[in-house]
Each structure stands twice: as structure tokens, then as C-alpha cells.
């Protein structure tokens, strides 16, 4: 009984990040990789780490306007992430469609298919902006846990 609050304390320190590319042009993906991998923007100070499997993730970063072709794969992947999860839309594409808005091949905005919590607009957003978005997501995630 007494162990559970302690687990909570430990668990809230390190949200793991998973990255879904929903048909992005890779611009935002490069910025996300920069955010995580380059010591200059080192996101691991916030306890975050990229993970390879959706089953280990706590925070999901989604980039891209959700093209028709990847829709099923993205939704299946999103289902695999355990609750409570926080979703961050990176770039203008998942938020509104950006320059691909009203295209026949694009299903944006993505929040009609997936509940989004935090938006980080930009084309692509700066690494600092992504860090700000992730910091916001961590606050939401701590409340939910």
C-alpha cells in the first residue's frame, strides 16, 4: 500500500517521448531530432528520452498533416501507447494543415482523429519552441498521472 505513492513520485520524473511521423516533410522531424540528440538543446535535462517502442511512451510528438495513406498506421500506433499519454502536435501541419491545407491527400487538422493536448506551431518550430511545448506537455502529464 505504501509503495504506490512512491512509485508515482519516481515515475513522474522521466516521461519518455515517442515520435510519430504522419506524413511530414521531415523538417519538423529534423528539429525534433536536434532537440533530443544535440547537447546544445539537450532535452534529457527534463528527464525525457526518445524510445523506440510506442508501448514505452508517455509523451507523443506528432508531425505531419496526416496523409490518407498513413492514417491507419498512425491510428494503430497511437492506440498502442498506454494511457495516460499526452499528445503534442509539432509544426503547423498537424494543427491546421499548413500549406497542404485543403489538399485531397491530407486529412488535417489531426485533432479530428486524435485528441491533441499541446500545439507547437512553426514551419518548422525552433528546437527551443519544441522544448517549451514538451515542458507544457510534462505539466499536463503530471496532472494526469
Amino acid at each position, binding site marked *: 500500500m505504501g509503495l504506490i505513492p512512491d512509485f508515482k513520485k519516481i515515475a513522474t520524473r522521466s516521461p519518455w517521448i515517442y515520435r510519430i511521423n504522419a506524413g511530414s516533410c521531415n523538417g519538423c522531424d529534423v528539429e525534433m531530432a536536434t532537440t533530443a540528440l544535440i547537447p546544445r538543446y539537450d532535452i534529457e535535462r527534463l528527464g525525457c528520452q526518445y524510445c523506440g517502442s510506442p508501448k514505452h511512451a508517455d509523451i507523443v510528438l506528432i508531425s505531419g498533416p496526416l496523409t490518407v495513406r498513413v492514417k491507419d498506421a498512425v491510428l494503430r500506433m497511437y492506440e498502442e501507447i498506454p494511457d495516460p499519454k499526452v499528445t503534442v502536435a509539432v509544426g*503547423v501541419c498537424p494543427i491546421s494543415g499548413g500549406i497542404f491545407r485543403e489538399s485531397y491527400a491530407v486529412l488535417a487538422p489531426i485533432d479530428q482523429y486524435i485528441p491533441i493536448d499541446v500545439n507547437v506551431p512553426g514551419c518548422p518550430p525552433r528546437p527551443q519552441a519544441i522544448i517549451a511545448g514538451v515542458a507544457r506537455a510534462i505539466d499536463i502529464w503530471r496532472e494526469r498521472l
Partner: protein
Amino acid sequence: MNFLTIFARNLKQGPQTEAFPLGPAFTPDRLRGRIEFKAESCEGCRICERVCPANAIRFAKTPDGMTFDCWHNTCVFCGNCEFYCPTDAIHQTNDWDLSHANVDKFDMVEHGLIPNQKCADCGATALNTAPMVKNAKPPLSAEEYTELRARCPKCRAKYLKNRKVPA
């Protein structure tokens, strides 16, 4: 010995990591970020709406005048609007922190209103836009500018035509 020099240099310089979000972030002065609109210097030519690749800018006619809206969630920071604006009414600030909760999605709008006015000459209702006076010779004085601005487009043309130009 090389590693010792590197070690000493690293000790001296400290970490390369930026302090953000625990401290201020480095921001270049000319970073292309959030759009800022000044309604009082807008000419109403709507070229920004036309050149915007993402259709982020929208003008609409309302009973009060013409409204300007730029949705930051579609803007791609390309800077076309600033480049083509003849009167420098649109600017890109270096504000990059636009992250927000999804419920505030539709509040991320830069809004501006170009109000209607009654023409000082003919009394017709027209937009109080900034007049196009770049090519006026000699340049207009501040007094002439306010007089010109208080008129409708037709009366502005008349005003410029009948203007006494010293030879």
C-alpha cells in the same frame, strides 16, 4: 597531451547546453517569427492575402470596416507578406514561443481593423486606409497627409491632381 588541452578548455568554457527552459533562450534579432500587423499603416491593397502560401491571412468586409486576420497556426513564417507590403504594415517579430494548449487553438490570431470613415469632401463611406503617396513629388507634408487620409479614394485622386506643385 591533446586531450588535456581539450579537457582544460571544456573546464574553462563550461557546458554548451542552452539554459532554456530554465533560463532565457538565445534569440537572433532578425529571427522570422510571429506576424505583427499595424492597421493604421495598412493600405488595404490585400497583396499579403494574395502572396500568403498557406492562406493564413484573410481580409473580410464588416459593417465597421475591413478586418485583418492572420492565424498563427497556419503561418509558415515565410515572410512574403512583409516583403510585398508597400507600406510596412506587416512585420515579423522575433517571438518564436507560440506553443499553446489545444483549447486555445483558435485564439492564436493576429487581428486588426481598418475602420470606415466619412469622406471629408463628398461624405461617402470609405476605408480609412493609409494613402499611397510613395511616388508623390514633392513628398507630402504631415498636414497634407492627414487631409489626404480623411478622403475617399476618388477624392484622394482629385486632391493629388489639384495639388499646387511649386515649379
